């Protein structure tokens, strides 16, 4: 039986949060397996990352008077926010600028439109977000590996804005569920730290993401899950999928560059959809 262990990039693509063709490719890849599994960690990443960026874009657009104002405000926010999520926000700004370009072209061609582009865009963003979150558990045949800390709450539309019921995605006071799972597999984490995440020779530069992941994996080994810093949970990222993927499954992701070395080291199969 062919089984896929799905990461967040595939989940996002299949949920149509990354543009048309990517969705088709992800759905086609999923159809090749008789069993597909999404870990709750992917839902957590989806909520905290891409989906939150879409929600931010929707809510800023709704709050502002025009698409131009929304672009300006999102730009200011990206400049002041830490790196986390900034690329996503900037990409969404690019998306909004694409819409503005289209509008200018229509105006230049003297086209009269019977719809308000801002409302159309707001409503499109809202329904994409609502659909994605509603379908999050039905993209794969199973959702596995629940995390005690993750609050899998519902989205609601209140005062024209989108928000999650019950606040933050991390249960207050709960130990980090991802750190707990990795701690149970300490020998595998140690193996990754030695073989994949050894510090680079002096003078060599490595990706910031890799440095943060090394630090987070060290924290997993050094601390009890209850003391694992909440901010480091997302830094575990791809390492979580590589460690937690069942041996009889293929890890399905679009992120070849970050997964390959880890998957190779742990003898896990990797599949990148074409």
């Amino acid at each position, binding site marked *: 039986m062919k089984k896929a262990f799905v990461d*967040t*990039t595939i989940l*996002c693509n299949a949920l149509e949060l*990354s*543009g*048309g063709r990517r969705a088709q490719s992800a759905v086609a890849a999923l159809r090749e397996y008789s069993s597909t599994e999404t870990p709750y960690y992917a839902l957590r*990443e989806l909520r*905290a*990352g*891409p989906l939150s*960026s879409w929600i931010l874009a929707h809510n800023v657009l709704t709050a502002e008077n025009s698409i131009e104002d929304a672009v300006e405000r999102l730009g200011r926010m990206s400049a002041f926010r830490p790196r*986390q*999520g*900034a*690329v*996503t926000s*900037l*990409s*969404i700004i*690019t*998306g*909004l*600028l*694409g*819409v503005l*370009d*289209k*509008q200018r072209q*229509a105006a230049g061609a003297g086209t009269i439109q*019977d*719809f*308000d*582009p801002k*409302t*159309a*865009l707001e*409503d*499109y*963003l*809202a*329904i994409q977000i*609502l*659909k994605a979150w*509603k*379908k999050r558990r039905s993209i794969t045949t199973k959702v596995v590996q629940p995390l005690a800390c993750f609050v899998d709450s*519902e*989205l*609601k*539309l209140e005062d*024209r804005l989108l928000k999650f019921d019950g606040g933050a995605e991390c249960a207050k006071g709960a130990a980090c569920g991802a750190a707990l799972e990795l701690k149970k597999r300490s020998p595998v984490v140690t193996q990754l730290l030695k073989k994949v995440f050894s510090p680079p020779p002096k003078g060599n530069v490595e990706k910031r*993401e890799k440095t*943060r*992941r090394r630090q987070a994996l060290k924290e997993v080994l050094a601390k009890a899950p209850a003391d694992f810093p909440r901010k480091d949970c*997302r*830094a575990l*990222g*791809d390492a979580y999928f590589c460690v937690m993927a069942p041996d009889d499954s293929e890890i399905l992701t*679009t992120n070849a560059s*970050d997964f390959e070395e880890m998957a190779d080291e742990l003898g896990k199969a990797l599949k990148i959809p074409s």
Partner: protein
Amino acid sequence: MTAKAKEIYDQETVATLRTTTTSRLQPLYIPTTVSGRDETGVTILGEDGTGTFFPDSGTLSNVVPLKTGRSLSESQTNAAALSSYRISVESLYPQWEESSEGPGEAIRLLRDATNELQSACDSLCSSELEILNSLVIADGLLFQAIKYSSFNKSFEIALNFCAWAIRNAQGADRERPPLQGMCAALHELQDKPFIDANRVTDLVINLEDQGWDGSSPVSVAFEMALADDWLDLGD
């Protein structure tokens, strides 16, 4: 509503009305002020709180008590729940009938669009041109209705999807099942202008499953412009 359920409903409603200060039989009065934006339905309970007649109709806070001292059996409530009984939006919100702006106008335009689409369904065996014309009129009316639908964002989202879906209609969408699916969705919106986001999401997913495509020039432009490396998971 089945005949039996309707009989019980009528008897108990009459019994209720006769015990009130109003001596003559009059239509069941539903107050027009509701406590929440999503509450368009009517719930009728027995004194013990078990006799729900319209369980899918929301959670209207104005509950009509039945004073017969008899609760409804499960089969009776199920039969009622499966019934096609609908309270029209005009009965719930009579003030909208005369309004030429806001919800009243949105509902009027939506009703006209629904009728137009229904006529497209009816024309299926006769004229392709009539179908196309009905679709053009229906989407035009829906785009008008969107302008008056700011009273409920979820309602506006649904109208937006339906308007674009009808405008994008391809050959396959002009067959009977998808057209009937769209008619049913528009009827639902007409009946439940205070529909919530959760139900709208189901409605849109259902329409997409039937082949309707609600994308617009702005959504296409947005998706095309999303950068390749947009997926930042915050690592």
